[in-house]
């Protein structure tokens, strides 16, 4: 038994209840409109929200950067090892040719 394959099978995605989407949309529609708050409360809330938004964007940028880094390293490894293999074969051919002549 391959445990990882069995885990993929066991943990495959499942659908929630058939009316899940409708219930979410209903909750969104029913969400109360934010009532007017005192100006300083609104200012603090806006600042907190903007910090959270910035944090979210920063996190995503970090995620993109780390992924890009992984991909660059992978690409260099593949390209480099292929090139290195070619150079080694050429060197071996040169060596073989010199030993024969």
């Amino acid at each position: 038994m391959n445990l990882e394959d069995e885990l993929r099978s066991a943990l495959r995605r499942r659908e929630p209840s058939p009316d899940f989407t409708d219930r979410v949309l209903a909750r969104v529609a029913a969400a109360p409109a934010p009532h007017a708050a005192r100006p300083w409360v609104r200012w603090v809330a806006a600042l907190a929200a903007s910090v959270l938004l910035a944090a979210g964007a920063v996190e995503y940028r970090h995620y993109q950067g780390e992924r890009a880094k992984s991909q660059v390293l992978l690409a260099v490894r593949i390209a480099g090892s292929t090139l290195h293999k070619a150079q080694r074969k050429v060197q071996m051919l040169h060596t073989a040719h010199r030993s024969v002549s």
Partner: protein
Amino acid sequence: MKTAAFLTVFLLFAGLSPAQQVKWNYDKLAARASETVDVSLDGALLRLATKFLSDDNEDEAKVKKLVAGLKGVYVKSFEFKKEGEYSAADVESFRAPLHTSDWQRIVGVHSTEDGEDVEVYIKNEGKAISGLAIIATEPKELTLVNIVGAIDLDTLSELGGHFGIPEVEVEKKK
């Protein structure tokens, strides 16, 4: 479940990534492959990546220097369950875009012993290298590389043969 999204950060139109120098169409090959590694990084993503490569790590610092100024790095590697899943005609279709006056084949190695062939092409713009293309074939694997920009081949090869290169898990998309 992730399918075609792994490591691919671009939408692929007709098998061609944006800003890729070589017009390779590998859709059919990808469909036959049991595992695929797909890296597509344009200049903007390469610049972002260099910000995350460490100057304190020797290999990462070399990679950082290597990719600085590059305009794109595109790698496609296909693994097949059995031999014979791709044909000589498939390989020739990948050579065809490189049969132009601005591409020059600098290495062509054919090994009957292990069935591994490697061809290396450089693109010249005046006296400068402006691109690199590699076609590497093995009985059950085919790799295509296109690097856009002035690449230092010695450093790239050195990194490829260096045991210290960071161990990157080759996660493959199915």
